[in-house]
């Protein structure tokens, strides 16, 4: 198990290296120049050239990449071009906000998905099943940013139950209740797709276990249906459900990006969107590196949890 974890962590290095090369290449392929973005249409050529020189953007790309990599190896992600602040602190600050949103969205997705899936599985082919699965299909089909806009139009502008955006109120905001109030709409928008996927997985996994002989045997012995469901069927379906939940949580870290933009949520998605517009290369690279690390680590955590829950996986890992 330990050697498996070590191997997986070591695999991180080529994965991240590859990711940074791709991202570095891609962002320099987009036409446009940070100096032009920063100085705007009123700027002179000389001012832009001087700024590019200052930022080291007049050097060949491979040189820029190696310099950046050398910095990263010294745990320095460089300084933001547009904000004149260390990238690490900007990304870390934004990541915490994303984590709050992603965690709430995951909570919503898992609870809603689990409930819908259980309702559907226990009433297979009944009205409850059809309604739940229709809801799940709808949730997976609607793009999150569009759902966000619709939620704002209804619950923030028409009914005015929730704020239109931001993480806190401008005046005397910032306590837990205030943040929770701001979280409701973006968490639903961000979690809807995952909720649909979780619901379908839960339904399928439960139905798979239900057909197994031991369940029939328990029913034959007269065990109450609830006991069978919660004590025997669910625990046996969990490995699959948990893998899907973990994967969805990983996707949520990056997937909340659009929702963050719609709701002006000060997270990494918003930061990335803004930085691409400004061609703030160090921030774009910093965010991508950070998201890659988190994604890979989350996947690893899920695999390890899977192994912990399922002795068969554990045995195959030890081999």
């Amino acid at each position: 198990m330990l050697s498996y974890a070590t191997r997986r962590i070591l695999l991180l290095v080529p994965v991240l290296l590859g990711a940074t090369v791709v991202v570095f290449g891609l962002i320099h392929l987009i036409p446009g120049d940070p100096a032009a973005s920063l100085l705007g249409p009123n700027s002179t050529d000389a001012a832009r050239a001087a700024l590019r020189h200052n930022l080291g953007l007049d050097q060949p790309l491979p040189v820029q990449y190696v310099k950046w990599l050398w910095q990263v190896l010294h745990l320095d992600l460089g300084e933001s071009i547009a904000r004149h602040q260390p990238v690490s602190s900007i990304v870390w600050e934004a990541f915490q906000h994303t984590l709050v949103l992603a965690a709430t969205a995951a909570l919503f997705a898992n609870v809603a998905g689990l409930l819908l899936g259980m309702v559907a599985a226990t009433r297979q082919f009944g009205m409850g099943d059809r309604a739940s699965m229709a809801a799940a299909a709808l949730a997976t089909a609607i793009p999150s940013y569009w759902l966000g806009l619709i939620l704002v139009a209804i619950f923030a502008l028409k009914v005015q139950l929730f704020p239109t955006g931001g993480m806190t109120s401008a005046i005397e905001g910032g306590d837990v209740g205030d943040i929770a109030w701001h979280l409701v709409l973006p968490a639903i928008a961000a979690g809807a797709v995952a909720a649909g996927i979780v619901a379908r997985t839960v339904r399928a996994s439960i139905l798979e276990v239900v057909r197994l002989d031991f369940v029939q045997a328990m029913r034959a012995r007269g065990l109450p249906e609830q006991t069978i469901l919660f004590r025997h069927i669910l625990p046996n379906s969990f490995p699959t459900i948990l893998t899907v939940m973990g994967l969805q949580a990983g996707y949520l870290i990056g997937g909340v990006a659009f929702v963050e933009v719609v709701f002006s949520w000060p997270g990494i998605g918003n930061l990335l969107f803004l930085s691409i517009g400004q061609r703030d290369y160090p921030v774009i690279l910093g965010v991508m590196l950070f998201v890659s690390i988190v994604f890979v680590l989350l996947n690893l955590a899920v695999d390890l949890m899977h192994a912990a829950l399922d002795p068969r996986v554990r045995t195959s890992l030890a081999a």
Partner: protein
Amino acid sequence: MMSSNPPEDPEKKPHNLDRREFMKISAAAAVLGGPTLSALLAACAPGSSNTTARGGTLVYAMEISDVPSLDAQTSLSQGSTLAQAIQPMFEGLTMYDRHRSDVVPPAVGVLAESWKLLDDGKTWEWHLRPNVTFHDGTAWNADAAIWNFQRLYDPKSPQYFELAFQLMSIYMPGPITSMTKVDDLTFRMTTPIARPLAEEIEALWMVSPAAVKKLGNDGFGRAPVGTGGMKFSKLVPGQQFEMVPYDKYWGTAYKLDKIVVRPVGDATARVNALVSGEIDVAVELPADGLEPLKGAGKTVLTSVRPHTWEFIYNMKQKPFNDKRVRQALNYAIDRDALANQILKGTAIPMTQLAIPNSEWFDETLKPYTYDPNKARQMLADAGYANGFDTEWWTATNGSGELQPVPMAEFIQSNLKDVKVNVKLKTFEWTAYLGEFFKAARPGIGAAQISYGWSWTYWWGLLFSTEYLPPKGPLNWGYYTNPAIDPLYDQALSETDQSKRDALVKQIQRIVWDDAPYLFCVHGLNVRGLSPKVQGFINAKEWQFQFQTMYKT
């Protein structure tokens, strides 16, 4: 000798009634009985005593998606957006008097009481306002003023901040040859040629030398210190910053108890936040947001500002090297429909480059009218009776760009009526700027851009031979007219404003006739306010001031 508008005397201790106190009084009055209550309410009602009414926390949404460095001397990297938001904390030697809404605000003395040009014709002597302190308690004096100019202009000084110089250089051009202190409140500044500095340095706001030394440039950007009527109080990174009144302010005290500034980069999000009451004031609102705002009972104000939106013709090649073609197309577009239908009244038709009521507006200049027949005739005279095909470029978004794609498509349909087939190519803003700065290339007929016009030297950057690309890529289409150069040189060093304005008007007359642009519209400031906001003055400029505002 020029002198500034005298500042108002600091008000006597104002009637400090905030919302909480108001509620207390109201509650007490309710106990005392009806007549007293109504009398008290009448006394407190907005409008009944506007000179003393004050208070409230105002939430202002700035049109960027982040809270960048709050250093006044790097703030212009965001156009005027961030400058607008930090303006309550900072002041310059001169500033535009945004307390006026009748004319384009003139530059008046703020941290300078008066200034004069010495006999050599190149040295300005500045007399500074006495008894002014920065928010950290240090004194504003000649040493502080020179220190600030050195931060931007003197690479040998320890405080030289190259990034700030690069960001500010477009707003404040030209080297400073020397600076000397005369006494504690007087210093002199020499430039290679005489320049109208009072106008040119209005965007240079003074920062506390002691604070920059203590915090460094990065630290200062997160805890700025100026001389303005509001001082920095709090920063929540990425989310908001706050300002509260500075009790030792030399001028008229701000009426607000607090200003909260939030970044809301998306224009629709600003409209939504105004409608739902999360913010009190927002600017740069989209044409589509006007109806929802009015429907929700918000105040929507528009005001002209020195802005132009145009297509620049590529004059290096046919057909736009022919003045008749350039003029013909100017007769082919319906500016009125562009401003009032496409942009729903958030712009006005461009009748000349200068905006109405500005110092450069020329009553005698004839606008290009909408006259497709005349356009067809002129095109036929130029040998294009059957029209021609051309490729034009525009951005899809960007600073001051209004709604470039619908606008360009409308123009495209207008031009089709005179048999000019425009193929539009669009770019995202930053990519577009990168392309635009490469200047006109073969095969591209015209490129769209919008400019802000506040300074005399701007006319040279765009139209003088000296600033042809690559030195000055702002002149994208390579337009020149030798008649402009001597006028521009003269205007640049003319310190008598009326003479300078007359010279600029002459330049404009030549440009207007040469038609290097397809002149389109002046975008308006579209400002949305909660009805609770009082004392707002709708300045004819990019920025407004917060000093007279309060909330009910």
